């Protein structure tokens, strides 16, 4: 029994935010909701959480409509972080736990455990406003999970985190999955998705353009990627002869390797043989599925991050005006 989103549509006045959205999230998985800003990810999450009602369509979790589910089914990490700045960390967390009916002593134990896990146990009695943005985000994450929700919904959880904290948060994700929780998060950064997600859905302008298991989605591209490096001087020369091979397209020439695109039906080992025949020593040969970045570009027509920057610029203009 899974989270099923069926034919969900939502308009805000003349703007169509979601257009006949349908996808399924298997329980116990980490699911990525990919899309540029304004694609409809946040609206979709709010509808699942039932803080916004869809114009049509339905959301069910293990067969029960979301309108009838208890609120503590969900844990939510909103894109815009927000806590009571003048309260202490422990007070804020106890407050949110209390709203979900978690007794104070149990909440305190859990908070201490999570602060330990995030390596910030001494922030317990500090005011939230004294914490850095990254550390506030950890507190926000704890606030979302204290009541032990079945489904954890997180809107851009990695935005604004430094690499160390990204790593800590990833570990927390895996911990939650090991506890049997279902995790859904939205992002436009593909690295985290590649690393964590077993299934994804890509949203563009309120529509699902592709969804399913990560491997299936990649395989459906109909091509594979080969990364090759040899002991020859410079990768540029390698790229030059590779480009002449039949059915091979050079994706990217990096200092450390050349990435090629090979359509299904072409044997990638042909490339390896060609390299060996040229007498070069192969230092790297790797056959892989296309990256999610490529999948995204293929389906949406532009990279997710580029879109993000455009939006940020627009936001700055709007703020200035």
């Amino acid at each position, binding site marked *: 029994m899974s989270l099923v989103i069926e034919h969900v549509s939502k308009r805000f006045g003349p703007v169509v935010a979601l257009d006949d959205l349908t996808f399924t999230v298997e329980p116990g998985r980490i699911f990525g909701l990919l899309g540029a800003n304004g694609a409809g990810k946040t609206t979709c999450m*709010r509808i699942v959480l039932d*803080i916004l*009602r869809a114009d049509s369509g339905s959301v069910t979790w293990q067969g029960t409509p979301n309108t009838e589910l208890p*609120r503590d089914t969900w844990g939510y990490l909103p894109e815009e972080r927000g806590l*009571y700045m*003048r309260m202490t960390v422990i007070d804020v967390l106890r*407050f949110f736990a209390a*709203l979900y009916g978690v007794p104070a002593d149990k909440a305190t134990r859990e908070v201490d455990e999570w602060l330990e896990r995030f390596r910030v146990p001494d922030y317990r009695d500090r005011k939230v406003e004294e914490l850095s943005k990254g550390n506030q985000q950890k507190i926000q994450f704890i606030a979302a999970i204290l009541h032990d929700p079945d489904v954890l919904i997180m809107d851009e959880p990695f935005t604004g985190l430094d690499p160390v904290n990204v790593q800590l948060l990833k570990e927390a994700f895996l911990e939650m999955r090991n506890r049997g929780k279902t995790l859904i998060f939205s992002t436009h950064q593909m690295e985290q998705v590649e690393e964590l997600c077993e299934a994804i859905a890509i949203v563009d302008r309120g529509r699902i353009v592709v969804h399913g298991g990560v491997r299936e989605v990649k395989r459906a591209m109909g091509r594979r990627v080969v990364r090759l490096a040899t002991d020859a001087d410079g990768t540029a020369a390698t790229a030059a002869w590779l480009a002449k091979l039949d059915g091979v397209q050079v994706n990217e020439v990096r200092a450390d390797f050349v990435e090629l695109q090979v359509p299904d039906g072409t044997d990638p080992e042909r490339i390896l043989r060609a390299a060996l025949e040229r007498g070069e020593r192969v230092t790297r040969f790797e056959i892989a599925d296309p990256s999610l970045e490529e999948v995204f570009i293929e389906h949406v027509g532009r990279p997710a991050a580029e879109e993000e920057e455009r939006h940020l610029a627009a936001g700055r203009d709007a703020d200035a005006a």
Partner: protein
Amino acid sequence: MRDLLPNAWHVARREYASRVRTRSFKVVTAVLALVGVALALLPLGGRLVQGNEEHRLAVYLEGSSLAPSLAGSLQATLNAATPSDQAGWVVSTVPDPGPAQAEVRSGKSDGLLTIQRGAGGDLAYQLYTDEGPTGSTPQAVQQAAYQLSVGDRLQNAGVGGQASQILARPSIEFVRSNPGARDSDENFGTRYVFAMALVILTFMAIITYGAWVASSVAEEKSSRVMELLITAATPRQLLAGKVLGTGAAGLTQYLVVVVASVAGFLLQRVLAERLVGAASANQLEGVNLTVLAPFGVLFVAGFMLYATLYAALGSIASRQEEVQQVTGPMIFIGMIGYFASFIGLTTPDATWIKVLSLIPFFSAYLLPARMLLSTVAPWEWAVAAVLMVIFLAGALWVAARIYSAGVLLYGQRPSLRAMFRAVRVDR
């Protein structure tokens, strides 16, 4: 109702604690309490500045045929004619008119009365004073001297033994043609001042504490903690908790100020007895303090009505700066009753003010004011109560809808249209 608990309670508790803990709350409460005490002590200060308000009269008895007890009976006569809430008379006999005249000139004494036995055996008086013939001292002394002379003449005529009986005031029974009605003149001034003070304080409290609710909601929105709240609790729970918590904080401040003022008032009476001597009369004479019971209930209900709507309006604002703009209508509604009370309470039995005082937005301050100044029929209380309950329920319903839509509304210019749209949508 049951679905409000326990989350409304958690929200209220957090709201109360964080509100009461702020420095501004403590400072404002302390300042208001001090102002209250100062105002309560003001009458005493006035009397201390004015000096001893007692009237002092020196009596010089010319010739030895006059009984020294004259001064005593003069003082008794003067004080008998003085209303109990005004300063009394102190009459003293002086052996020499010279220094006494100097005291009158320097203002230390109100007058010097010289009494002598005239040619016909009648008492003759001379009053040395800086006041004209219609001044309060000459008037009072003339009245007292007349009674003194009548007594003296009766004594001379041989009815001395019965003189006090003859001069005693008769008892008169007053029967009101309209029993139960308030005397429109007697103490109306005091009661009017008290009623207006009640109106002003209530209006200010409701508007101030209501605005607290609005800004607190807007703050949760602008700090984005709202999105977390709205997933953890229902809009109705949040709304109810917010109103209760802020209301309790406001009531705390209100009670601290009232208790401090009442303490100041009681202290003022004790101090007045010690410093000035004569016990001052109850300054709230004519003010029926039972008004405070229904007032308390109405105050809380009125606040909840305003605060609920304030919360809804606050939820439409995206930032603190917009709160003023969106809560304008509430202040406007409050103002109607406020100004109406200024115009209308001089004639508390006019129909329009009666009708206005039953409307929930105004009843919190108009009804107790009317009760002070006139009478409020039981059915009027009933109508006001029923209307209040209906309005409160309606306000909660409308506010919960505006709130649940408003809290997710960012960046849009808050407008009446947006509000009505919010009420129309499902949640």
